């Protein structure tokens, strides 16, 4: 006799945006196992069409509050390429510093506030305030410092202000950067090491599940790729970011307002685990030691361990942020004015590793510097097919367990991807036809 199972989780909690988990099994045959994306579409192309290049990053950062910095930086890079705007070495360093801050912020938020309650059998972080006050305070301290990097360097952590095409409207002072460096060394590094201990104690609650899949992330020769690099697949190796459409192949499915993506097989995974699998050799020794401590191995195919890969990566971001500040201060901060004189009007493509995976923006500008065409491909959209494939393998493996246990495993699976559903739905794929 085969099993019957019906699971419907409406508006899954502790994820960004609105998604439903739907599973149906009849007489042992899995009829459906998928994440329905029910987020309201926002139609960003209506906002971008005809807008000045000054506004593109302001608008696309509003696709998502959590990923606003990533959208902004990617948008600026694509605009600068399209308009032939060169940026200074200082601008690139400040942007890399911002990405480190945003990555730490997002990874810490996910690991402590969204994922950890599951490891402790709680519905939210709030009961932990009473039961584990030191842990909650540590998480808040790490998040505060990560956000302070955004506040100091970009004017505001959510929807940053000062990064504009060609540079920054305000350069932080040496004193501000020195203070960030001091706190990174004195607060963030010890807090990171304590986080590794905490996660090690909780890691037993992470399900043991494996499904061989394709991992895609950026990769570059000289550093752990976040700001830029080639697109790198565990199946087919490296291609330049201009080939991004071939590496994503978006398509519409009825159960999701967000489009799905595929590259070399039915699905692939992006995000911290993909970065770990592709670029672990570029991590700093502290992060590698943390990975060893947490049992994270290269070639890891357990998607639940994405949360652990996020923690490991946060250490690298903290230490590299210190190195970047040292370089900025060593070179001497220059009060540069943004370079906003276009040298051409064309198409630009940019790719950035944001916390949830590779983010692509592409714009074409007309001769007035207004947006003529735009395309954004968001990490969560790229992961959706992989999540569905994971569910289809997971459900038959755990079908002997109670419905509550199966539901929890499915919820934890989706949360492990740290999906950003607002982002994924608000994608653009538009060529305006005049």
């Amino acid at each position, binding site marked *: 006799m085969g099993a019957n199972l019906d699971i419907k989780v409406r*508006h899954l*909690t*502790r*994820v*960004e*945006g*609105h998604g439903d988990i739907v599973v149906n099994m009849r007489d042992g045959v899995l009829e459906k196992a998928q994440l329905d994306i*029910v987020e*309201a*579409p*926002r*139609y960003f*192309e*209506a*906002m971008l069409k*005809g*807008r*000045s290049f000054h*506004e593109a990053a*302001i*608008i696309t950062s*509003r*696709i*998502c*509050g*959590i990923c*606003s910095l990533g959208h902004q930086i990617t948008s600026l890079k694509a605009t600068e390429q399209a308009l032939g705007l060169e940026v200074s070495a200082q601008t690139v360093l400040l942007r890399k510093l911002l990405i480190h801050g945003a990555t730490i912020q997002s990874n810490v938020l996910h690991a402590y*506030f*969204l994922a950890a309650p599951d490891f402790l059998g709680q*519905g*939210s*972080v*709030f009961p932990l*305030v009473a039961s584990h006050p030191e842990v*909650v*305070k540590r998480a*808040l*301290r790490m*998040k*505060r410092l990560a*956000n302070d990097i955004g506040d100091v360097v970009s*004017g*505001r*952590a*959510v*929807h940053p*202000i*000062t990064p*504009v095409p060609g540079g*920054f*409207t*305000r350069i932080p002072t040496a004193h501000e950067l020195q203070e960030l460096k001091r706190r990174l060394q004195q607060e963030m590094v010890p807090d990171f090491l304590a986080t590794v201990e905490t996660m090690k104690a909780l890691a037993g609650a992470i399900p043991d599940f494996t499904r061989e899949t394709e991992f895609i992330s950026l990769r570059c020769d000289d550093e752990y790729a976040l700001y830029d690099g080639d697109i790198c697949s565990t199946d087919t190796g490296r291609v330049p970011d201009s080939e991004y459409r071939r590496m994503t192949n978006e398509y*519409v499915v*009825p159960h999701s*307002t967000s489009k799905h993506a595929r590259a070399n097989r039915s699905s692939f995974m992006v995000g911290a685990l993909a970065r770990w699998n592709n670029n672990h050799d570029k991590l700093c020794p502290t992060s590698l030691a943390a990975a060893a401590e947490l049992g994270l191995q290269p070639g890891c195919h357990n998607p639940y361990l994405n949360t652990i890969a996020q923690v490991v990566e946060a250490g690298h971001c903290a230490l590299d942020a210190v190195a970047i500040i040292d370089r900025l201060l060593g070179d001497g901060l220059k009060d540069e004015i943004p370079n906003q004189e276009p040298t051409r009007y064309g198409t630009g493509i940019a790719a950035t590793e944001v916390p949830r995976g590779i983010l692509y923006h592409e714009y074409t500008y007309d001769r007035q510097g207004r947006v003529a065409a735009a395309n954004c491909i968001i990490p969560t959209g790229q992961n959706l097919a992989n999540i569905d494939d994971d569910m289809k393998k997971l459900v038959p493996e755990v079908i002997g367990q109670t419905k509550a246990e199966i539901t929890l495993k499915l919820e934890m699976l989706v949360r492990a991807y740290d999906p950003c559903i*607002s982002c994924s739905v*608000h994608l653009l*794929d*538009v060529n*305006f036809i005049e």
Partner: protein
Amino acid sequence: MTRKPRVAIFDFTGCEGCELNQLNFEDQLLDILAHVDIVEWREAMDDRAGEYDIAFVEGSLSTPDCIKRIHDVRRRAKVLVALGTCAVTGGVNAVKNTRPIEEVREEVYGQDKYLFPTLPALPLSAVVKVDHNVRGCPMTQIEFLKVFTALVMGKRPIEPDYAVCVECKLRENECVLERGMICLGPVTRAGCDAHCPTVGQYCIGCRGLVSEPNIAGMEEILVDHGLSLDDARRRLQLYNANQLEGAK
């Protein structure tokens, strides 16, 4: 008060950046939790509650499901606070309202557009009674704390109704317009302490308009600063599409 106020937080169509800013109260979060019980917050917790003393609602309304849900929230909430400009004016989402809806749907989903129903993006106040507003894109934490503190103390929060320029002058900033840039400060409602001009950027108007804005005067200033009239209107529209007439 015999029991702590029961607070719930909801999100509709938006980027959830305002909610995220609530999780970013690293220094105050534990104090806030000491004064209220958070009984429902999908982004952060599993629990779902029946009724609330205060509901904070983020996002604009843009699908039939949104309309149904906001009525439900209103029925259960004693006080309803619109959180962020999407909830207060429709925000950037409302820009799509300036174009024919079928055209917009086709551009994004092509022939699959019928899979996903959509409506013009509306502020909460277009559908239910809103008791208080916290503006901004994103809302500022300082302003949220002011409104939050007032409500917990049983007082009525006061919303500023003067232009960002007032706060900008108080901060002794060099006028953005004098620096050769454009700025929407003269018609944009204050409350942000003129943060963007203070860090070198122009005011993009993210808090919505003052109650009696001089739009013609603002357009003239923008044209004087090098924009075409069309471009000037587009800039003003970014956060005010539902408020500006003829914004087509």
